[in-house]
């Protein structure tokens, strides 16, 4: 070759660059170090969409403020009745003129956050409904979603998943993607647990059986301890009658660790309270010796040990027949803190690693088989020109792979289908050109002139046809999720790559054959 044209240089550069990007995916570590990302459906893993029940965060805020108000009214000797929460509203009655005056003062001084929804005075009885301003409500909701995301991220970080993807989706949805997670069930437990830790005293005065039959006595409720026998996998439920009032919550925790009980060789979780929590805990244990204190996690009793003595120092342990993993996970959720509101799973997709491997194997097998058929077909039909088209096809696949690695796009199973489809459609551009060249040759043009005319006439057609496919692919990318997005990516890459290989690369090969080698005839 005497003169190397600009086009040759561009082709070689593109080829070189794409090889650089492709090699890392085949464990040959060269510079850009970018491997093709495999989607969850290929490498196995879990995809979750969670919804934060943000209303619950608002409800619990109002509930807490209601409790504060109750305490404040009691210390100020305000007479009141029927203080209760109804969804986002707090209803109460204040009795007596003197109490109403004092109540107004307390409300103005200490509870400015409240909005007065309605206020009715009937003689010396004031009926008032309090709620929160809309801006505060939406602020609490927003915070709840943010905080939930942060808490879940902390939990997953501690759990140890490589390259997790956790992000907000819309206003109150959280998308969690855990590639290659080995125990999806455990991960799901870890993420979904609200982990609200409460300590409640067990009511020993009343019998549980009676409370079960009728309604439980005032100020108490029935909670269950659920124990799973690990050998039979049977659940057993034990009811407990506990006081509704929470004596202590997990928000005073500073640390939670797994330890092994030396006596029984069973794991337990030791927890550490901060100063305030330690003081509270000491006071509770001191005044309730020989009573049972239920450790309640998300409204389920974990254990209800008997308080043997006053416990100072702010350390306690949560026992129960844990496996080591359960204890480990409990420690994680306690450390990361409770979710501000419960979350529930809207969508779950879990693919086991063996299925992913199967999919890759089958996908690649059909890709290879399909390509071989197409390659053989093209050679038989177009001979030398078919060989050129096959070369372009091979380059096409390399370009798609390089594009995937370069853009750090994710290859999914439908994505592999997209590549296979492109193999079929990529030869289309070449077919269009070759048919044109044949037409021109039939008219009696020389090979060189025929190739030239064929390309110039086919180029616009090819552009039109591919742009429309590209439109479909881009729309698919915009609206698609997960696997479908992967399909759109490979399809678009395929379209662009086939434009390049058909219009530039195969043209260059023709030209160099016809001009430099001075070929007189063309096998097409």
């Amino acid at each position: 070759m005497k003169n190397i044209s600009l086009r040759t240089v561009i082709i070689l550069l593109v080829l070189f660059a794409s090889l650089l990007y492709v090699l890392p995916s085949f464990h040959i570590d060269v510079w850009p170090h970018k491997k093709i990302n495999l989607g969850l459906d290929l490498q196995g893993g879990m995809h979750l969409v969670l919804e934060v029940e943000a209303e619950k965060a608002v409800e619990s805020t109002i509930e807490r403020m209601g409790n504060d108000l109750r305490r404040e009214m009691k210390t100020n000797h305000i007479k009141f009745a029927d203080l209760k929460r109804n969804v986002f509203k707090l209803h109460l009655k204040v009795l007596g003129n003197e109490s109403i005056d004092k109540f107004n003062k307390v409300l103005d001084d200490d509870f400015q956050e409240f909005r007065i929804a309605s206020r009715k005075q009937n003689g010396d009885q004031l009926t008032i409904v309090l709620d929160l301003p809309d801006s505060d409500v939406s602020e609490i909701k927003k915070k709840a979603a943010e905080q939930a995301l942060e808490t879940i991220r902390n939990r997953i970080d501690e759990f140890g998943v490589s390259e997790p993807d956790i992000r907000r989706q819309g206003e109150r949805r959280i998308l969690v993607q855990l590639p290659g997670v080995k125990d999806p069930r455990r991960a799901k437990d870890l993420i979904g647990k609200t982990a609200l830790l409460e300590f409640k005293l067990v009511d020993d005065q009343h019998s549980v059986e009676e409370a079960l039959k009728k309604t439980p006595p005032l100020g108490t409720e029935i909670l269950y301890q659920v124990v799973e026998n690990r050998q039979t996998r049977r659940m057993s439920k034990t009811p407990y009658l506990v006081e509704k009032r929470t004596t202590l919550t997990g928000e005073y925790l500073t640390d939670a660790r797994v330890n092994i009980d030396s006596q029984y060789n069973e794991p337990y979780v030791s927890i550490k309270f901060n100063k305030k929590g330690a003081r509270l805990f000491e006071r509770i244990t001191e005044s309730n010796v020989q009573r049972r204190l239920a450790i309640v996690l998300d409204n389920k009793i974990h254990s209800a040990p008997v308080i043997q003595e006053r416990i100072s120092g702010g350390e306690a342990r949560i026992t129960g027949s844990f496996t080591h993993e359960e204890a480990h996970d409990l420690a994680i959720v306690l450390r990361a803190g409770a979710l501000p509101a419960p979350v529930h799973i809207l969508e779950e997709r879990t693919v086991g690693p063996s299925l992913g491997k199967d999919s890759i194997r089958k996908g690649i097998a059909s890709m290879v088989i399909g390509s071989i058929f197409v390659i053989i077909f093209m050679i038989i039909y177009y001979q030398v020109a078919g060989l050129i088209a096959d070369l372009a096809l091979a380059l096409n696949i390399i370009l798609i792979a390089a594009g995937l690695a370069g853009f750090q796009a994710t290859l999914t199973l439908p994505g592999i289908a997209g590549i296979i489809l492109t193999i079929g459609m990529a030869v289309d551009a070449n077919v269009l050109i070759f048919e044109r060249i044949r037409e021109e040759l039939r008219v009696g043009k020389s090979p060189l002139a025929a190739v030239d005319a064929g390309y110039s006439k086919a180029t616009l057609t090819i552009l039109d046809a591919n742009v429309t496919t590209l439109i479909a692919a881009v729309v698919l990318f915009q609206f698609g999720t997960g696997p479908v997005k992967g399909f759109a990516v490979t399809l678009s890459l395929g379209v662009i790559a086939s434009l390049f290989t058909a219009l530039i690369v195969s043209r260059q090969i023709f030209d160099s054959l016809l001009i430099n080698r001075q070929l007189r005839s063309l096998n097409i």
Partner: protein
Amino acid sequence: MQFIQPDINLDFIGKRLIGFSVSATLILISLLSLLCHGGPKYGIDFAGGTLIQIKFSEPTTVDKIKDALKTIDISGASIQQYGEASNNEYLVRADIAYKKLEGLSEKVQQVLIQAVSVTTETETSESTPTLENSESSSATATTQTVSQEVTDDQTVQATLPAEVRRIEMVGPQVGKDLREKALMAMFFALLFITIYISGRFEFKWVVSAIMALGMICGVYVFQKMGVSMPFLIVFALILSMILFWFLRLQYAMGAITALIHDVMITVGIFSLSDKEFTLPIIAALLTIIGYSLNDTIIVFDRIRENSRKLTRDTFDKVINKSINETLSRTILTSLTTLIVVLTLFLFGGGIIHDFAFAMIIGVVIGTYSSIFVASPILLLWKVQK
């Protein structure tokens, strides 16, 4: 080598009525099938529900699984053998109402594992643990009894008689969202394609862009007003057909009619063969749109070129000549695409199976429609004159 002789001259346009009636019949069958089945059969992506793919180490039967599921009140689940019988692989699908959905996959998993494994029952013993000061743990005695030796989780996993290979759970709200998104995707793809075709073939960029913009605004407004999405899209499509007619966007009308024709027949065949619509199928439908359009545009391109060259011929002759000239290419490309889609269908594995099936139909119908539907439609206006 050549399949199609260069001087071929088949009279496609003359037989266009046969083409139209074949298409009309196919569409009618599709619509009837959809009507009988009460709309398309949605997979869990769109309907919501739970799907579990489970592989057993020993042979089991559908009935056995069904019985096991009854113990946790899932009697309506459909159970299917998946792949070859020797694989012992099954698909369990349940459309469970939302609140019960959570934790369901775990339960199903557990029950199924139990059903095929021999379990020995042991009594659960009541235990009363004590809370103790961890600094003086020896001072108080724990009353907790260790009822069973702690089995290492690792060994439990290894001897499991069943392996859950895939779980998919979609809540109904998400299903509805995905359904609407999929419809929107189809609709937008069609609109953008309209603009491109009208612009490229008839230089009506502005007219078609304004029309498309109006459509998008209209759909958006009505959607905000709470009109149901499928109804809205169908209405919008009919409206755009009428607009095409009056705005004389003939190429767009030809192409879009062919696309709707292809999608409808593919959907119809899916409904006839009782296959489910999932997200990958939507991807397949959109690819069919892209592919069929590819075919159509290549014929249109030739028509455009020839109608400039052969000004003396009548338009139907020009169209017929163009179809014949591109016939060789049309058949070749369909063939290569069909080859790869067929390999995908045969060797691609279960998850991609239906996708490949949709593509096979799409390639065949798309090729047919670009010859027998899209091109003859261009003649509608000429006849009127």
